[in-house]
């Protein structure tokens, strides 16, 4: 099956300046480092790992970039590549941002015999999601026995590097690519009929599981938290937490 990276064309709207695909973030357009900008369209997503401002993202989202920027709450800062995995589609950026909260990875493994409801979405879409505080899930996991993490999800380009959040607000993995030609919409209809999720356009999406991410972070001495304690209550929105933890990644 063909794998499709979930990157988005770069569009940076800053003080009325539209930069083309993969164009650099120019100071002439008013997007100076650390400065608030009018509107930022990130190509990929990321998730804050710790209070130092390290951001987890997909390796392919930062490969070949001459410069890197991370956007959070309309604030853009320059980022540097701190670590890149040779084994998984994972990278970590160092930034000067101070997150409100950092990701907490789930310690326990996902059940191999059943699906669980999760939330995953591109930062740029979370930014404009009108019902964010009321959204409980938008995807489900596909049971896997080999430790892989795949979702039935309608995520759009720009979701590469976004966190897969469980109902308790714990990070289960990170979205990396959509698998084209995977389950038919007819096959998924039944699944969605039993789940109160948005079924529109859902396809199979591959994510790097938390276990692999944690192994990579430990090997590179990058701080992170893990727990099995719920970080949000059952009535709170994982979408809102995903937005708190998330950031946009711009490849210049």
């Amino acid at each position, binding site marked *: 099956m063909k794998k499709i990276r979930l990157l988005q064309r770069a569009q940076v709207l800053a003080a009325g300046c539209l930069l083309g695909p993969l164009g650099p973030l120019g100071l002439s357009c008013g997007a100076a480092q650390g400065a608030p900008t009018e509107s930022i369209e990130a190509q990929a997503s990321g998730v804050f790992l710790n209070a130092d401002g390290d951001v987890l993202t997909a390796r392919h989202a930062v490969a070949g970039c001459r410069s890197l920027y991370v956007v959070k709450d309309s604030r853009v800062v320059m980022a540097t590549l701190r670590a890149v995995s040779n084994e998984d589609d994972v990278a970590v950026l160092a930034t000067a941002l101070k997150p409100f909260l950092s990701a*907490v990875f789930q310690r326990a493994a996902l059940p191999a015999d059943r699906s669980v409801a999760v939330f995953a979405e591109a930062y740029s879409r979370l930014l404009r999601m009108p019902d964010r505080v009321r959204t409980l899930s938008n995807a489900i996991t596909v049971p896997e026995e080999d430790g892989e993490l795949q979702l039935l999800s309608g995520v759009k380009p720009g979701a590469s590097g976004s966190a897969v959040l469980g109902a308790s607000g714990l990070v289960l993995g990170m979205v990396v690519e959509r698998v084209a030609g995977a389950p038919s919409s007819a096959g998924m209809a039944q699944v969605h009929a039993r789940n109160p999720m948005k079924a529109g356009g859902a396809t199979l999406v591959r994510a790097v599981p938390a276990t692999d991410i944690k192994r990579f972070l430990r090997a590179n001495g990058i701080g992170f938290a893990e727990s099995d304690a719920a970080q*949000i209550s059952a009535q709170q929105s994982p979408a809102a937490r995903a*937005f708190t933890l998330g950031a946009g990644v711009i490849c210049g």
Partner: protein
Amino acid sequence: MQEFSQVQATRWSKTLHWLKRLGAGVGIAAMLAPVDALPAQPVQAAQPPQHWISYAQLASNQFAAWLSDPADDAVVRLHGWMQERLLKDGQPLPPPLVTRVWVAPSGQVERLEFASLGNAQADNDLRALLTSRPLSESPPPDMRQPMVLQLTLDFPQKQ
């Protein structure tokens, strides 16, 4: 909503430091102090659920960000008051300020209580900073309110 007991409130409290970067204009940064930096208190109540703690951290850090915004007129005035108080009047830094915060389901701080800073404008600025915009998430429906946040005014070493 049920108000915490004093012991619970103490365990529930977070400490914010307002930091001034000397020579850096209007910048006021803030950060959470480590929990073990809080004064020792008798521990009688059960640890709050993790999702309450997580939300309190979110609120504390978001408040800190608001208090660090050099583009905000209220932050500039508050900073000026702190500086004048220290340098001109020779007064020591104010003692830690205990704030009680009630958050509506929308994330908006709907009620805020704290002892006066001794300056009406500073009180108004602090209140405006913490109540003028909503927090990014709704509070846990089961969380007891108010949250009690301890603000500590401080001037660190030059960075």
